[in-house]
């Protein structure tokens, strides 16, 4: 058992090192959500209620980008390049490998959340998070859920060249629907229903409660339940459909 943990830690450290060495990954992980935040902040300057909605929305999107998007990309890339198959031939335990890979994504999600909260505090007139416990629970549940869905989704992507198309075909509509349904009380009912059933809007609500409105865990149990259900389905599909090999070999 200690071996499994030690090897997972080694994998995590390697993943961190590789992350910082890949400038484009670092860019998409950190700069892009901050650019969204800056852009939204410029548009809604002076409109505090809009800013109050912007910050938790960007926070939730950041979690999705650093886990769902990043893992789908990585897994497809490593699978098609034959890296996964090579790792599978070594004594590295599967759980250590994926533990290291997931922990790497969670680290990026956590750093992203810290940046968004700092930006909210110092640039957008939002105070420090009110419910820290609720914040931690939602970030963790959201990250685990989105990471599992990312790994599961990688299975549906046939080759690396089409990864961007597949990922964006999910990421952009989900973000658009969820942001819209969260922001606008006049959104059509069917759109609200779709957004409520997807994991991103419940995550925005949970984070909004924890960061902005001070509504705690107890008031967002239904949101947490939706995230948990997606997470369980994601883990099931990620494990079940996992492919260590690309299509070309």
């Amino acid at each position, binding site marked *: 058992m200690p071996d499994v943990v030690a*090897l997972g830690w*080694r994998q995590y450290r*390697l993943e961190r*090192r*590789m992350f910082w*060495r*890949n400038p484009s990954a670092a860019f998409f992980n950190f700069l892009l959500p901050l650019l969204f935040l800056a852009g939204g902040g410029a548009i809604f300057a002076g409109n505090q209620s809009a800013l109050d909605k912007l910050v938790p929305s960007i926070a939730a999107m950041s979690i999705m980008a650093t886990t769902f998007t990043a893992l789908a990309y990585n897994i497809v890339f*490593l699978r098609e*390049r*034959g*890296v996964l*198959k*090579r790792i*599978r*031939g*070594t*004594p*590295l*335990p599967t759980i250590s490998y994926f533990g290291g890979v997931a922990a790497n994504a969670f680290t990026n999600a956590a750093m992203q959340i810290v940046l968004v909260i700092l930006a909210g505090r110092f640039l957008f007139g939002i105070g420090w998070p009110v419910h820290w416990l609720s914040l931690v629970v939602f970030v963790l549940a959201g990250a685990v859920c989105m990471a599992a869905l990312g790994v599961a989704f990688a299975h549906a992507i046939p080759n690396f060249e089409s990864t961007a198309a597949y990922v964006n075909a999910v990421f952009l509509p989900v973000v658009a629907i969820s942001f819209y349904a969260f922001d606008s009380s006049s959104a059509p009912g069917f759109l609200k229903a779709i957004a409520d059933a997807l994991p991103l809007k419940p995550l925005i609500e949970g984070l909004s409660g924890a960061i902005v409105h001070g509504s705690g865990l107890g008031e967002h149990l239904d949101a947490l339940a939706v995230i948990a259900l997606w997470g369980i389905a994601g883990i099931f599909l990620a494990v079940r459909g996992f492919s*260590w*090999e690309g299509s*070309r*070999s």
Partner: protein
Amino acid sequence: MIGAVNGSPAIEVSGLYKRYGEYEAVRGIDIAVRRGEVFGLLGPNGAGKTTTVEILEGYRARTSGEVSVLGHDPARRSIELRRQIGIVLQSGGIYSHITPREALRHWAGFYPHPRAVEEVLALAGLEDQADVRSRKLSGGQLRRLDFGLALVGDPDLIFLDEPTTGFDPEARRAAWETVRSLRDLGKTIVLTTHYLDEAQALADRVAIMKDGRILAIGAPRELGVGAAHYRVAYRTPGGELVERQTDDPTALLHEITSEALARGEHLEELFVGRPSLEDVYLELTADA
């Protein structure tokens, strides 16, 4: 127990079948690979070589048959077995953003008794590229890193799947030297290749596969000696190529040449030889 395991073959396969739906990739093969030998699996593309090797490596489940690799069933994918084998895949990628030294150091951590990273860098001929990010390495250098990553755990058994495909002649010679040095270290090596000269140069024994079956198995030299040991060929004055096989070339040659002399003919392209591995291979793998 240890003694018994060491005395047994490194790999034992009997009655191995692998089906993909209707398609039978491997159709009942038997192989025993001795410890310390270089065993070549030779055959055209689609013969079932890679499927067979990937079953031995634990990547694929077999449909039926018995398989034992170093005393383990590879389908169980035990960590114990994976600690003792090294695999050079046909197309195994590596992380773009780390160097050979870092990759070898990371891989060494998977194994209980790894070789020193410096030693592996030297063995793989990567001393000069040790600190270059792998995305900047050439194809040949990446292939040498493949070798290094397969060797860093100091495995007893090494699988090489088409290790020199796409190499220039010089790189092939270098790879062959590496394989020979591994054999000199007492490693058991299973090599798949579709290059005859590679099998002839490296393998102690060769199995020739086609359509999921083993057509012949033995030392390359013995395989060259079939039922008919010698081949005598010549062209008649009419231009017809005649080929005859015999166990006794002296008598046959005497018969042919004395008849020709009696008729006052001259035999063009007169040839006496033993069939090469290539002849055997071409004969066995030719489509009927």
